[in-house]
């Protein structure tokens, strides 16, 4: 057990003592509400802080959980332990519907859809005869746990906080897993994640559904705690308040949800007494303060308050470092490698038009297994676009690409990645908040399988060890093993590029596409990189290289394709290319 786990266990033990230690009823009730709110805010941490999406409709999911359980347990006498299952089925169905129609578009359509859904559900609850209209449902039964009544706030406290802490731990486990890394990659832009084989759409849907499930569970607990439900706690303004909790506490951290829920609840109570006295009259004046604080927090402390707590705690608690426990882990499976000389990639007259502009004009070339091919040309020649066409980032206007005898033109980039093509990016695309090792392990996504449930229950540890072993091996290969625990965001440009190569290697590729790998590297680093690439070639890997450093390209490649203005100029060995007057003209211009 490390220091942080001990703190968590200590907090849990302290919480367990509170109800029997004679804490006044008022504070038990407050803590119950804080636990309920934190469960919802936890979903928003996952959604907003980790994945870069958001929802204003979480209160509606809370309402869905509360109303379903309240209705079934009062009208039909169903046990609350069964109603939660029904509530979850409905919640997941609604969340799937909302997510599937909005998440294929820009990220801001989801919150707009959730806002509309929140309003619709609110007015539906308020007008349905069988749900008691604005009065709601009274006399919701208390829960029982193996014959123990949970009718009192003190006993219910245990249920709420066990659920809240288990949820928090499950989310922490999830974030530190294969699925978690895929979820965290959503924020780093779609292209990189897709290039690693991650279906960003599916993971966005997944995260939204998880957040909805957490909200629904909170609602279910709420209904049997309050013992009555009515529409007002599930209005859209409450949905915004949940978001406020997450942002205030710190939307990037699981414990931020708890800090936020606690602060908002306590603040709300104080303001509801203080402000009407100050302003006279009555009404929910506290939303003025909430609104202003929300804007101020986003301006001056966009990570919320948790980082300050973390900093304070950092004085006593050593920073956590991943324990290297994978020394004896088995190796990940590798794909069958092409035989040297076999035709690997066949680019046939690929064409890309942006409106009237022909960016790539019927370019053809081939790569055989075990070759290093260079793609060079002046700026704007269409090299990167060609790269994007081959890897499926951009759709082809015409032409075709065959990879290992299979047509891949027109496939999504993650499908192409699955077939053994991996790439780096001209502008490094990484996740700065993850360590170098975790960034590289992202490359092993397609070689591993554990899903959400396994991750939450930590049944994925064996596979994780194998993944990290592989990631470490690739880092060692490019000489970055010493930096594996560093945060990727702290790397200089050169090492960051090398890390991208390690990540690409971690996918176990048959063909590696490197977009300007030597840019920003120092002379020694370039030499080291060329040694690594030669060694990869000796191991049978094929490489397509876009590069501006002519020394680097000429010394490394077997053949070179030169592009100019979207068209292939010539193709040949480095010597042929160097001798070509056409290439000189393209780079230096001609005399007239």
């Amino acid at each position, binding site marked *: 057990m490390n220091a942080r786990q001990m703190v968590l266990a200590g907090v849990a033990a302290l919480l367990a003592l509170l109800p029997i230690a004679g804490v006044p009823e008022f504070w038990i009730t407050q803590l119950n509400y804080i636990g309920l709110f934190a469960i919802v805010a936890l979903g928003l941490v996952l959604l907003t802080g980790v994945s870069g999406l958001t929802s*204003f409709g979480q209160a509606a999911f809370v309402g869905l959980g509360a109303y379903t359980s309240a209705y079934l347990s009062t009208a039909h006498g169903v046990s609350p332990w069964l109603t939660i299952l029904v509530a979850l089925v409905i919640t997941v169905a609604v969340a799937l519907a909302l997510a599937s129609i909005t998440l294929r578009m820009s990220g801001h359509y989801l919150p707009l*859809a959730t806002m509309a859904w929140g309003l619709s559900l609110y007015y539906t609850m308020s007008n349905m005869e069988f749900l008691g209209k604005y009065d709601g449902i009274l006399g919701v039964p208390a829960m029982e746990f193996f014959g123990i009544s949970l009718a009192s706030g003190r006993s219910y406290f245990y249920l709420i906080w066990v659920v809240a802490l288990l949820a928090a731990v499950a989310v922490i486990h999830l974030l530190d897993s294969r699925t978690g890394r895929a979820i965290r990659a959503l924020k780093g832009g779609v292209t990189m994640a897709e290039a690693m084989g991650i279906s960003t759409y599916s993971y966005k849907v997944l995260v939204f559904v998880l957040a909805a499930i957490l909200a629904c569970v909170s609602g279910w607990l709420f209904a049997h705690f309050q013992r009555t439900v009515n529409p007002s706690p599930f209005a859209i303004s409450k949905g915004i308040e949940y978001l406020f909790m997450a942002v205030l506490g710190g939307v990037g951290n699981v414990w931020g949800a708890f800090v936020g829920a606690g602060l908002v609840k306590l603040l709300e109570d104080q303001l509801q007494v203080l402000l009407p006295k100050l302003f006279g009259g009555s009404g929910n004046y506290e939303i003025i303060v909430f609104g202003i604080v929300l*804007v101020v927090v*986003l301006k001056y402390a966009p990570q919320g308050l948790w980082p300050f707590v973390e900093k304070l705690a950092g004085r006593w608690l050593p920073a956590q470092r991943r324990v290297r426990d994978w020394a004896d882990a088995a190796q990940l499976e590798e794909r069958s490698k092409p035989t040297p000389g076999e035709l690997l990639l066949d680019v046939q007259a690929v064409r890309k038009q942006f409106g009237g502009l022909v960016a790539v004009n019927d370019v053809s070339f081939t790569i055989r297994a075990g070759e290093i091919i260079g793609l060079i040309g002046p700026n704007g020649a269409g090299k990167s676009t060609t790269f994007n066409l081959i890897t499926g980032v951009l759709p082809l206007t015409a032409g075709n690409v065959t990879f290992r005898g299979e047509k891949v033109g027109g496939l999504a980039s993650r499908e192409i990645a699955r077939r053994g093509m991996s790439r780096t990016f001209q502008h490094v695309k990484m996740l700065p908040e993850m360590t170098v090792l975790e960034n590289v392990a992202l490359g092993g996504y397609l070689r591993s399988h554990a899903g959400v449930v396994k991750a939450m229950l930590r049944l994925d540890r064996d596979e994780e060890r194998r993944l990290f072993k592989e990631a470490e091996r690739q880092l060692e290969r490019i000489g970055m093993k010493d930096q594996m625990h560093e945060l990727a965001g702290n790397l200089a440009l050169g090492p960051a590029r090398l890390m991208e190569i390690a990540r690409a290697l971690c996918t176990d590729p048959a063909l590696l596409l490197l977009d300007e790998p030597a840019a920003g590297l120092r002379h020694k680093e370039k030499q080291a990189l060329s040694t690594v690439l030669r060694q990869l070639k000796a191991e049978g890997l094929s490489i397509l290289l876009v590069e501006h450093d002519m020394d680097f390209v000429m010394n490394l490649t077997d053949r070179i394709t030169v592009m100019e203005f979207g068209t292939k100029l010539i193709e040949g060995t480095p010597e042929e290319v160097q001798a070509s007057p056409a290439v000189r003209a393209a780079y230096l211009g001609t005399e007239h």
Partner: protein
Amino acid sequence: MDFSIASILTLDGVTNGAIYALLAMATVLLFAVTRVIFIPQGEFVAFGALTLAILQTNQVPGTVWLLLIMTAVATLLEVVHGIRRGAPAARWLKAAAQTAAYPVAISLLTIWAAPQGFPLWVQALLTLALVTPFGSLVYRLAYESLADATVLVLLIVSVGVHFALTGLALLFFGAEGFRNPSFWDERFSIGALTLSGQAVIIFLASAALIVMLFLFFERSLYGKALRATAVNRLGARLMGISSTNAGRLSFTMAAFIGALSGLLIGPTTTIFYDSGFLIGLKGFVAAVFAGLSSYPLAAVGALGVGVLEAFGSFWASAFKEVIVFTSILPVLLWRSLRDPHSDEE
């Protein structure tokens, strides 16, 4: 339902739809120029309607005090900012004076004019002049320093602003609802249809504003500058167009449109301090229909929302909001099938 009821409902829907069209356009405008999804657009509607209602009682509306407070904060920030940057006193004094001059002047004018019992149209003009500066102030206080943040952050700021403005509306206008008198009490009969003078005014004002917006964007240099900012902020900045000024100008226009919508809708329904939210969101549904990018589609969507709402309230009045807001889902589905691109930041 027979033809005459259908035509009455349609007319009703189109009348409200014309107002939603104005709000939808303001939403599209703001998103294009500043990337802000401006949830609180409807708050300007409530401000407009309630300001006029209180002027009708010959009292000074709370809008004045709110405007002065917000101006004071904006001016103070201007001064602090100037001193911190070490700018010469003359410059930040001038900037502060520029910030404060108009709002203070219009507030003083209102304080003088309120008890005089001027005719309705004078009070309406005064209302527009009083609510419009809120746009620029809201932009300065909430969005300006975050102008380069992601759409997501700006959207969360928007709900914060919505909370703050709704709460402030409660504080400065009270919880009481008002219904304004009609600008024109005439009624015209066309067969079974009765067209109220107010509806005629709504149509004329909406049409005039849409034409004015069109001319502004197509013919004026300012309009072109705004469009340039909408297409590419950095490029526009390099061409000497200040994206800060573009933001302030578009928020000012949005506040004006909001206030005008408030004047137009005030006589047709009772407005409370928090009524603006739902009205604004209906404009929003229309803007989403237009993918937050096309003005003509937004107008069409708004008329659709109005008609849907009118028929919805006839068939199932308790569920009219449910019908209107659920209709956004098929719209989104249609959009996602038509244009499924996702964004890459």
